[in-house]
């Protein structure tokens, strides 16, 4: 019964198919030709589409194409990335050759909109930023991907944690979206949800600094080889990122890696050698007997005077010894790309070996990648990407510490320069009488190492399921995994000064962390044309899984020179944590494009996650957008405006996204406690909330894109208003109930900002070309609702500066103690703060601006320069607090106001004991990147190397060579607590940041 029904259906289908074919087989003409670029060279891979249909083809390696037309009066549309598209009416010709002109603007580039579709930039309704490989790494060699975004994105506030090798940069897109999370964007690499977590190393416990936020561990995004990146798309806010649902509150960064192209196999070899030097050194104050008498307690003075006299004028500049070193940098890369019409491949290998300016620190990365695209049939394409990475970083001992003296900067703040801490001839280090540890010994003997092995594997499948003249149904499938295994090793040997003073000298923590991210997604995309209206519908589902398991073991009381955990007196399991999260989502989206004049999109995503209280409840995130290309309308085209404006595009977009609660927010556990050899279960002090909801953000974005004089000048202006609600706040319970906090969805935040981008090709002549772009952006954050009484939290309390959580203020507002009256005895405003502190500053900047220049002169020379100006934004400078405490501030002994009291005791307002002393303006102007390259002329190359070498480029570049700032710390960009949304900008003896200088050689065969 079943079989016969089946066969009759099959017969019917066959018959219908044949009829369709017969109908269609009426008017068939074959058209062919060549697609060339302006200089006569063929363009492989150019798209040739019959306008208003889905019939199309792609030009071959030699630029030729062949297409079968089924209608009369067809118009062919020719397009290729980097060129302006062209429409040609076929008429009666059977050969249509076409020459495409280069596109100086980026309007032809293709940008991702939905999870499975893309759109031309000229039709885009959102302010999506794209950074090409040239912009990203074309100027200089930047160590990690996150560091390469500086100055290239409007609307982002970036802050590096410090200069330790292996990166660690906080990227906040359009302000902050969470008060408890880190507000870091989602990273997607070739469709794989990449791991950008910071894995615990335990250094903060060995040095006594505190909890894991002060580990100063590197961020796993530093594993990625930035030279593999083809382009980066940044979806800055919910209006663009809504389709990513629950993880997209802080934006999405979509990275696409390089792929092969059809044609001759190209081999590219590059070698960079460089050096890094510290950005700024301050020098230390000199001492005199008078200063010793002023600074030290009476009981201490005799010893200090004795030491000073014994030194006999000799001084040791510890700042220079530790930080003032030149570190060698090396970067070697080999890339092979090639293929034919069916298969394309890109293989790359890279070796990065960069030492740090502090002895025995550095960063090494080995990366191997193979990207393969293969056409299984004409309708099915499979892309596979495999990446193996091994990174080894040694980050040293800097930052905060408590009692152990194991932080170089913290330690040397207290050591006067007349005391010798270096080892004697027998190799023994003297005890440091000024602090708990000898910093020279820590640098020479301590180890802080992280070794990571990582595999990222991506699969992308595109299959055309149904094709007709006007419609195309395809299936887009994506899957992948990101496996990271990291081993951390923090070690202080037993013969160090502080260790000898402990009951169990010698401290080692070995950690193993494993992260596995997997994703699987499938979508159906249906593209159909009705006259001039092009519609794209898509629907799909995605399932994500994130797993992180970690185990750290600690051993103290170590046998001489041993690092094995079993060679210790006190062995403990320092930390073990399992974490597993699953998200499931479904989405639909409808795009409508009327003749490239009006483009509208609407969509919804539904999401659920095991992190949310009710794991099986779907949350809906809608989105909608509208863009109008006024310049394409006839009434503009035929007016006088068309001679000036090539693009006038007002646009509006709205979208909602969510941020998920952290793992464990739903649990109220009994934690373990060991006492007297027995195991205890103690009630948690942080209750969970089994009904916790995700944090939701809704963003409304207005913009206007203008292109003038054939897109020679481009202006993009955007205004956005991002409102987040249900922000998770840890409600502080009465401390008397024995439970400190319970998470609640009480707060609401608002981010409003403006992004402006003005780019122009200022000069375009044969021997001189200059294009320039200015970006300007600002963001204002406001806590619109807190739901609980105002409080201070973060950093080290009101006496040193902390952050205010109060309605009507930005949560990045820094408050602290301060004299109630100023120098003229005028009472100072309380600024309506209700937590008993004064407003001292704000960590968010007033605005930021960047200026990028690309100059090409004498045909073969390229000069690039990128400036970045951050105005406003305050730091809590506790490094100066340490220096003053130790008498080593460069100006400690000076007396600026000539009142007999040294500067080191007279910071801020009288009586000089408030937090106002440490809150300092971190405005800076920085030359981020500058480079000069020479490309050897092809004619000379051909002559010398007999056509074997196709390109040779040499040059010099530098990163952060110049900084102008009034800030009195090593770098106005700093964060001792790592990636933080709110409590950023706290400066405690960080690893100083560097200037990097490189010489480059690129050879292509």
């Amino acid at each position, binding site marked *: 019964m079943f079989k016969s029904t089946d066969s009759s259906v099959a017969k019917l289908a066959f018959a219908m198919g044949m009829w369709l074919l017969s109908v269609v087989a009426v008017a068939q003409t074959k058209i062919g030709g060549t697609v060339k670029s302006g200089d006569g060279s063929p363009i492989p891979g150019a798209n040739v589409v019959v306008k208003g249909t889905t019939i199309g083809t792609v030009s071959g390696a030699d630029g030729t194409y062949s297409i079968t037309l089924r209608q009369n009066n067809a118009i062919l549309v020719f397009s290729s990335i980097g060129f302006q598209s062209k429409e040609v009416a076929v008429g009666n010709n059977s050969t249509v050759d076409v020459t495409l002109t280069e596109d100086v603007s980026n309007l032809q580039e293709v940008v991702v909109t939905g999870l499975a579709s893309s759109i031309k930039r000229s039709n885009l309704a959102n302010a999506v930023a794209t950074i090409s490989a040239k912009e990203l790494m074309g100027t200089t060699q930047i160590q990690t991907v996150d560091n390469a975004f500086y100055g290239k994105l409007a609307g982002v506030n970036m802050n590096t944690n410090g200069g330790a090798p292996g990166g660690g940069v906080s990227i906040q897109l359009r302000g902050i979206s969470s008060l408890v999370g880190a507000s870091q964007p989602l990273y997607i690499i070739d469709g794989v949800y990449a791991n950008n977590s910071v894995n615990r190393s335990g250094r903060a416990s060995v040095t006594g600094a505190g909890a894991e936020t002060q580990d100063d561990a590197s961020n796993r995004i530093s594993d990625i080889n930035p030279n593999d990146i083809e382009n980066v798309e940044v979806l800055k806010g919910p209006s663009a990122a809504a389709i990513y649902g629950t993880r997209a509150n802080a934006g999405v960064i979509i990275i696409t890696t390089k792929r092969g192209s059809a044609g001759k196999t190209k081999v590219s070899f590059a070698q960079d050698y460089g050096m890094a030097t510290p950005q700024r050194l301050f020098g230390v104050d000199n001492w005199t007997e008078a200063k010793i008498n002023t600074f030290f307690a009476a*009981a201490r003075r005799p010893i200090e005077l004795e030491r000073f006299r014994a030194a006999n004028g000799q001084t040791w500049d510890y700042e220079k010894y530790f930080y003032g070193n030149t570190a060698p940098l090396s970067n070697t890369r080999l890339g092979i790309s090639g293929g034919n019409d069916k298969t394309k491949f890109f293989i790359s290998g890279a070796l990065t070996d960069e030492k740090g300016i502090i002895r025995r620190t550095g960063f090494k990365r080995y990366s191997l990648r193979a990207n393969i695209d293969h056409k299984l049939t004409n309708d099915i394409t499979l892309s596979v990407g495999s990446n193996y990475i091994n990174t080894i970083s040694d980050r040293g001992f800097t930052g905060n510490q408590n009692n152990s003296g194991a932080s170089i900067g*913290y330690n040397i703040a207290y050591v006067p320069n007349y005391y010798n801490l270096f080892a004697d001839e027998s190799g023994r280090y003297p005890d440091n009488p000024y602090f708990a540890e000898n910093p020279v010994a820590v640098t020479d003997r301590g180890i802080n190492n992280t070794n990571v092995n990582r595999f990222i594997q991506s699969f992308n499948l595109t299959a055309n399921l149904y094709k007709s003249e006007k419609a195309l149904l395809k*299936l887009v499938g994506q899957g992948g995994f990101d496996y990271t295994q990291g081993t951390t090793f923090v070690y202080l040997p037993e013969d160090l000064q502080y260790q000898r003073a402990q009951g169990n000298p010698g401290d080692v923590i070995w950690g193993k962390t494993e992260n596995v991210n997997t994703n699987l997604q499938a979508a159906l995309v249906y593209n159909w044309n009705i006259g001039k209206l092009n519609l794209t519908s898509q629907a799909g589902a995605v399932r994500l899984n994130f797993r992180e398991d970690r185990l750290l073991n600690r051993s103290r009381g170590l046998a001489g020179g041993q690092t094995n955990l079993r060679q210790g007196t006190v062995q403990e399991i320092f930390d073990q944590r*399992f974490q597993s999260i699953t998200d499931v989502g479904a989405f639909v989206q409808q795009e409508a494009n009327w003749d490239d004049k009006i483009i509208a999109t609407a969509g919804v995503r539904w999401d659920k996650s*095991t992190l949310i209280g009710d794991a099986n409840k779907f949350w809906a995130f809608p989105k909608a957008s509208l863009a109008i290309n006024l310049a394409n309308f006839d009434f503009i085209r035929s007016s006088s405006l068309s001679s000036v404006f090539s693009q006038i595009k007002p646009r509006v977009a709205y979208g909602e996204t969510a941020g998920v609660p952290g793992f*464990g927010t739903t649990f109220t556990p009994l934690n373990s406690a060991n006492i007297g050899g027995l195991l205890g279960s103690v009630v948690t002090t942080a209750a969970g909330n089994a009904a916790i909801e995700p944090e939701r953000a809704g963003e409304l974005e207005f913009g206007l894109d203008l292109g003038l004089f054939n897109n020679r000048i481009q202006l993009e202006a955007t205004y956005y208003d991002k409102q987040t609600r249900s922000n998770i706040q840890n409600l502080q319970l009465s401390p*008397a109930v024995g439970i400190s906090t319970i998470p609640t969805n009480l707060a609401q935040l608002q981010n409003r900002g403006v992004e402006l981008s003005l780019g122009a090709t200022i000069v375009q002549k044969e021997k001189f070309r200059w294009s320039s772009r200015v970006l300007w952006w600002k963001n204002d954050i406001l806590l619109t609702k807190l739901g609980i009484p105002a409080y201070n939290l973060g950093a080290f*309390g009101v*006496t040193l500066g902390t952050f205010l959580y109060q309605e009507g203020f930005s949560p990045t507002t820094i408050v602290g103690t301060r004299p109630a009256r100023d120098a003229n005895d005028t009472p100072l405003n309380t600024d309506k703060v209700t937590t008993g502190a004064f407003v001292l500053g704000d960590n968010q900047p007033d605005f930021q601006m960047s200026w990028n220049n690309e100059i090409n002169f004498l045909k073969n020379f390229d000069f690039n320069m990128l400036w970045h100006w951050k105005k406003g934004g305050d730091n809590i400078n506790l490094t100066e607090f340490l220096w003053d405490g130790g008498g080593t501030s460069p100006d400690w002994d000076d007396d600026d106001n000539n009142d007999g009291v040294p500067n080191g005791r007279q910071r801020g307002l009288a009586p000089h004991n408030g937090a106002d002393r440490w809150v300092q303006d971190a405005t800076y102007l920085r030359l981020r990147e500058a480079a000069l390259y020479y490309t050897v002329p092809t004619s000379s190359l051909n002559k010398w190397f007999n056509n074997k070498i196709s390109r040779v480029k040499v040059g010099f570049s530098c990163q952060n060579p110049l900084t102008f700032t009034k800030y009195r710390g090593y770098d106005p960009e700093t964060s001792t607590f790592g990636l933080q949304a709110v409590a950023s900008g706290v400066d405690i003896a960080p690893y100083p940041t560097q200037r990097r200088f490189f010489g480059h050689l690129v050879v292509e065969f």
Partner: protein
Amino acid sequence: MKNINSVFVGLLLLMSSCNFFTLDTPNDPNNPSLGSVSQNASRTQVQNLVTGLESRHRDYLFTVTALFGTLGRELWYLNASDPRWQTDWLGMNGRQATPNMFGYLNTYQQPYFAIRQALTVIDAVNNTNTFTTEEKNAISGFSKTLMAYQYLIVAMGQYENGIRIDVKDVQNPGPFLPLAESLTQIKRILDEGNTELGAGGTGNFPLRLTTGFTGNGFGTIAALRQMNRAIAARLAVYRQDWQGALDAVNASFYSATGSLEAGPAHTYGAPPDAFNPLFFVRNAAVSTLLVVHPSVINDTIAGDARVRAKFFRRTAPVSVTSDGTPLAGQYQDNRYAANTSEIKFFRNEELVLIAAEANAQLNKTPEAVAAINRIRTAAGIGNYTGATTKEALIDEILFQRRYSLWGEPWGHRWVDLRRYDRLNATNVDVSLDRGTIFKQLARPQAEVNWDAYVQTR
């Protein structure tokens, strides 16, 4: 076409299978849940909760010893890494004990964590069938005893601010009761504990306790009841209930002739346990150390054995300069042999002193002098030869308490001077640190915030 079909069908099947869209509500992979002990808890679970209570019971120790000791100028906690341990705690340069004062919240919060733990134990044991009635009484009595001890710590820190006693409902804690009322409530809890221990049967405590109890003779229910009475004696003295104090002393583990060191202890050990927080390696070249306040050394009677036993003289002092004022400590704590040594939280010596004080207040002079002499003899400074007026005896007792109970996890000096209204510059030496003498700590900002929040929610 075949390939496409199979791919299509395969993916469609995958998507449409129920598993793709279903999520399981996760269980905590790292810990048992609090909910698992609220009903029908097993013996093992309650054992773990009781051990947890012992653990929480000692968490107050470092901050209370260091802070209350600093307030009474028994000691300084010199810390070169963070000067706020000096500047804020000593009230230098006009600083006050504000609700945001540095590092004092632990002295308020840790006891309440222990109280929450005790409430959880009592709750668990009352809602399960795996214990006999006697066993339930013993466990509940023990928990209430430790609970009262912890409440008293908060009461001594907050003093006239008053404290919350009813904290059962996490979102609706009870009001702040004034000092006298709080102490009465603490007495009630202690007496309930005493009654329950009395109805707890005989023999050993039904669950395992650490050597802090069992190794010091407090493994039996009867001995734990004596411990309860000892705490009651301390409380009675604060309530100025002198006869009550004597009665409690007599029902406690007081021994007229036995060791002054006898008493229950907090135990410490190597990880996963915690190290003794008051242990510092003798004479180590460090920049952070608990040091004996110089006035304690200066005021001592020559030959006092307590000074020789408890204080260790360093070769080089530890000195720290904060806010321009240098502080140096030549002597450090000598009481603990290793970082795994236990710390007694109530000793017989204090019971002798309570007996002395209560007798003196009740004008029972011979008994008071006998008790004072017991202490003085043990300290090797000879019998008391001063006046025997109540005033003089109290002076002498306060002096002896200063050395007998130096650096105990209670901050006795501060509490004692304050209850006799002697917390002033005559009795507390602030000449070296030029700080302020704080009478009490402020009610924490978190409490103030909570009360404000309750108004608006």
